[in-house]
């Protein structure tokens, strides 16, 4: 236990087993991003998956909506300490997008329309753990929350769930993305409080 601050009691202990260490429950849905909210038009939107050998798959917005979708209900945890439980999404499982590819890649760089990127192990995007989401709470995903489509990978801190995604780059080597190069953790497991490099 760290140093005790005299007189500090904190709020009533919820002991919510679904709340990772250091997190509190947010009533609203805070917005965090590094710059202005880009407005991405769906008539020019494309989503691309590439592999280390140059193989490439691409979907337009209409093609993407025609893919089989799922409606995950998940808890999300932001590195800035808020968590939100039972958030309702609709999107395409990453398994559907990369399932047919022939690749030896172990890592993925996720790219966004605003130039943002984040890196993850490919394994963390498979087996029903991650989606490209385009609805939140039964409505089209709003631009400030990453619409028209964002990555949703709820078991990691939420900066990994990149907004305004335009593609996945499958790679054999791990390289840091935008926040990771700025000192945030490469993996970002909220249950192990992997907030920053070295945690």
């Amino acid at each position, binding site marked *: *236990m*760290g*140093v*005790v*601050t*005299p*007189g*500090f*009691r*904190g*709020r009533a*202990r919820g002991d919510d087993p679904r709340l990772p*260490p*250091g997190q*509190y429950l947010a*009533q*609203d*849905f*805070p*917005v*965090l*991003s*590094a*710059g*202005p*909210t*880009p407005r991405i038009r769906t008539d020019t939107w494309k989503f691309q998956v590439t592999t280390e050998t140059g193989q490439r798959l691409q979907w337009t917005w209409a093609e993407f909506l025609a893919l089989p979708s799922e409606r995950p209900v998940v808890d999300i945890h932001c590195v*800035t*300490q808020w968590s939100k439980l039972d958030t309702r999404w609709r999107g395409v499982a990453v398994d559907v997008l990369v399932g047919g590819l022939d690749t030896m890649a172990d890592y993925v760089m996720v790219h966004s329309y*605003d*130039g943002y990127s984040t890196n993850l192990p490919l394994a963390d995007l498979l087996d029903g753990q991650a989606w490209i989401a385009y609805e939140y709470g039964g409505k089209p995903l*709003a631009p*400030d*929350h990453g619409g028209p489509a964002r990555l949703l990978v709820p078991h990691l801190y939420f900066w990994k769930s990149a907004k305004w995604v335009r593609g996945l780059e499958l790679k054999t080597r791990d390289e840091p993305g935008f926040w990771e*190069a*700025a*000192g945030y953790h490469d993996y970002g497991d909220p249950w192990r409080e992997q*907030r*920053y*490099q*070295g*945690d």
Partner: protein
Amino acid sequence: MARTAVSGRLAWRVARLAEFRDETPTARTLVFELPGWPGHLAGQHVDVRLTAADGYRAQRSYSLAAPADGDRIELTVQRVHDGEVSEHLAGPYAVGDPIEIRGPIGGWFVWRPKDPEPVLLVAGGSGIVPLMAMVRARRAAGVRTPFRLIYSLRTPAEQYYADELRTPMPGLDITYVYTRELPEGRPGIPRRIDVATLNTAGWPAEFGATCFVCGPTGFVETVADILVALGHDPHRVRTERFGPSRD
């Protein structure tokens, strides 16, 4: 900022409150003594951790309000309703009391005195804190980088750092926007920040200024959208948001 191993930089350190100043009835600047502090850049933040006697912990992020003064760092904490951390820090937390701090954190929303571009700072309410760190870092470094600050407030009574900002600083132009109540004797009516404000009190887009926008989410969204519409390069518009979203 001193070069320090990441593991050392992000280790928790015990800090003690050295002094405090009330900025407004609900906001307090806390000056901590933090032995071994490696230094930081203007705009960076720290994590603060409070531990109760029974082991319960709460952790929050706060922007640094000023350049480091040796082992002393400053935060300004706005007391928020039902905020378990802010109510303690801006309330009973007393000089000499220990607390844990780690950082500095964040390498994007930062300004370095060697950056040559003009700077536009746009603050909404307590979003002034990291921007004030930039103003102070500019003064401390003795550089002449042209700065413009647009500070949006609900009422004059909510202004932070009022005496310091009243003292003219060459090369820093300040424009105040009041959304609910104007200062005594100021003509006009309260209004929100808009295209005209940013067009008049900001920099022309072709100057290639770096824009730092900090405040509540709705405020930041509005300002960033206007700056982009006025022709500013989106990659030069750096934002820090706090609080709930609009929807």
